[in-house]
């Protein structure tokens, strides 16, 4: 049930950056992979569905850590709720069963993480910003599952719709999700496997240097310069070997069509861009 003709589809001329990000994230999932998603994960869910509709139809998806291999309708207002696990072939009934599955290194090896702050060694913060932990400037939702997924050998794919010095910082205010810690061998010395693989932002795609584990520019999106990416980043980025930074391939017309008409016609993926703007501004005033 792939999108017809997806292999030969030309690059799209008319697309938005959320669609490009979905296409890049979709490329992270290979045939044979198993992936689950967390809450408020509109871009990853769109990407998982896009991968399944194109190059990875047998990708195993555990929707919202509950519904296995669902055939859902359009991306709903929650990625941890029933409409997402529509027509599943199995329910994981209780979290104990989910953790048994996910702690076993054989299953569900990839996980996408969205966080308010990300640092140069791929540590993520979704807990507090500024001030003291116990009276922070901004109280964010919290650690939840990312605090687990970062420590148990999963390959992490970060998405960030607001590439800025606020969100890409030298050192996170709080490590909610373990990346490469202080870089180098620190993560592996602690006995942790896996770790951050890729960072997909609204400006660029980044990865991590194999030895230093420092974040490195992999490609810049069409129309974005290396200088723009660097100036929107709160630390000095490494460049690819040779120094040439390629351009991120745009999504294909078939990918854009599938995202717009089948996967996410209500544009839930764009909520994340609003949400990050709201967070960056300190959120809605609560009095």
């Amino acid at each position, binding site marked *: 049930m792939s999108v017809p003709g997806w292999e030969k589809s030309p690059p799209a001329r008319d697309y938005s950056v959320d669609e490009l990000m979905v296409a890049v994230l979709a490329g992270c999932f290979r045939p044979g992979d198993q992936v689950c998603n967390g809450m*408020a994960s509109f871009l990853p869910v769109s990407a998982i569905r896009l991968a399944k509709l194109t190059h990875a139809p047998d990708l195993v998806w555990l929707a919202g850590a509950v519904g296995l291999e669902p*055939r859902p309708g359009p991306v709903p207002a929650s990625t941890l*709720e029933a409409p997402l696990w529509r027509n599943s072939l199995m329910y994981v009934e209780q979290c104990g069963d989910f953790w048994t599955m996910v702690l076993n290194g054989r299953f569900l090896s990839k996980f996408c993480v969205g966080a308010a702050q990300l640092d140069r060694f791929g540590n993520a913060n979704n807990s507090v910003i500024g001030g003291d932990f116990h009276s922070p400037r901004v109280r964010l939702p919290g650690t939840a599952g990312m*605090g687990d997924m970062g420590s148990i050998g999963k390959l992490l794919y970060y998405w960030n719709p607001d590439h800025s010095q606020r969100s890409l910082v030298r050192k996170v205010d709080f490590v909610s999700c373990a990346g490469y810690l202080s870089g180098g061998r620190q993560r592996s010395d602690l006995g942790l496997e896996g770790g951050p693989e890729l960072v997909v932002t609204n400006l660029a795609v980044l990865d991590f240097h194999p030895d230093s584990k420092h974040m490195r520019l992999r490609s810049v999106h069409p129309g974005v310069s290396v200088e723009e990416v660097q100036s929107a980043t709160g630390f000095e980025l490494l460049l690819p070997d040779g120094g040439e930074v390629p351009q991120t391939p745009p999504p294909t017309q078939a990918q854009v069509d599938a995202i717009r008409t*089948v996967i996410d016609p209500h544009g*839930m993926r764009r909520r994340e861009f609003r949400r990050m703007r709201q967070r960056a501004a300190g959120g809605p005033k609560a009095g």
Partner: protein
Amino acid sequence: MALADAAASVPNGATVALGGLSMNSAPMAFVRELARQRKRDLTVVAIVAGMSVDWLAAAGCAARVITGLVSFEGFGLAPSFRRRAQAGPRAEGGLAVEEYSEHLLICRLEAQSRKLPFVPTRAGLGTDVLALHADSGSLRQEVDPATGKPYVACTPLAVDVAVVHVHEADASGNARVNPKLIWMDNEIVNAAERTVVCAERIVGSEAFVAEPHRTTYPRFMVDAVCEAPFGAFPTSCFPDYGHCGHFFEEYVDAAASQERFEAFFAERVVGPESWTDFLDANGGPGALIDIFPRAGRADAGSIGGQGAAQGAGQAGGTEPR
């Protein structure tokens, strides 16, 4: 038991664990009674939560929140939780947040329910969550002397009362979530000294005998049963009803000003006398969106038309009731 009576049995200062998730099956009818009764100094345990914690924060009932996450997901941050957490525990009306990852909190509850000194896990290693709990000793990073491998020792978390929302219960407390999607609710029930079940419907015991494989909690684990139709509003109760997006939006919108929020909270949340009055004040059951589109409605998720046929008349794979 009436909701108000069950809530009255929770003393000030108690540790109350709430079931559900941010958008799913939170015991909101019971939480509203706690807020109406102006409980004080509660410690609220809610592993992944949203509106339930926010109501207790807004009403000033909660002094401490032990949690992995509090958010309204796509609808934004939980405004009262946020405001009081940012003020901090030393401020008047401020909140202490004891943050854990999801699995660390589950392991603490399992240590409690199995009467173990600790339950080990790899989850949370390398995060700053561990340092938050070094002084209290509730989490300890240790190294296994036999293998040299590090782990986190999660110590027991005592819970006075667990409150969970279910589809059906009988008068003696047998209860079932059907289909059984309970996330972490069993973890809090197993750990708690007492459990209150809020049920969409009270049914006869013969319903459990007819389908014993569907019983989720037996009566000896349940201390009180309350009937609460649509009792998870504005969160969802799959497959009966979805979450009420309008309520979340209006709530977050009102929180743009503290004055407006207090008026909204008084009028729309704690003001209505009964749970039925509360539902009426918020658009009634009709305000709840259906979880699944019914037959004949557009199914934009289908490819080549297979989705509509599969979606029609299958309310999430459950038997007709």
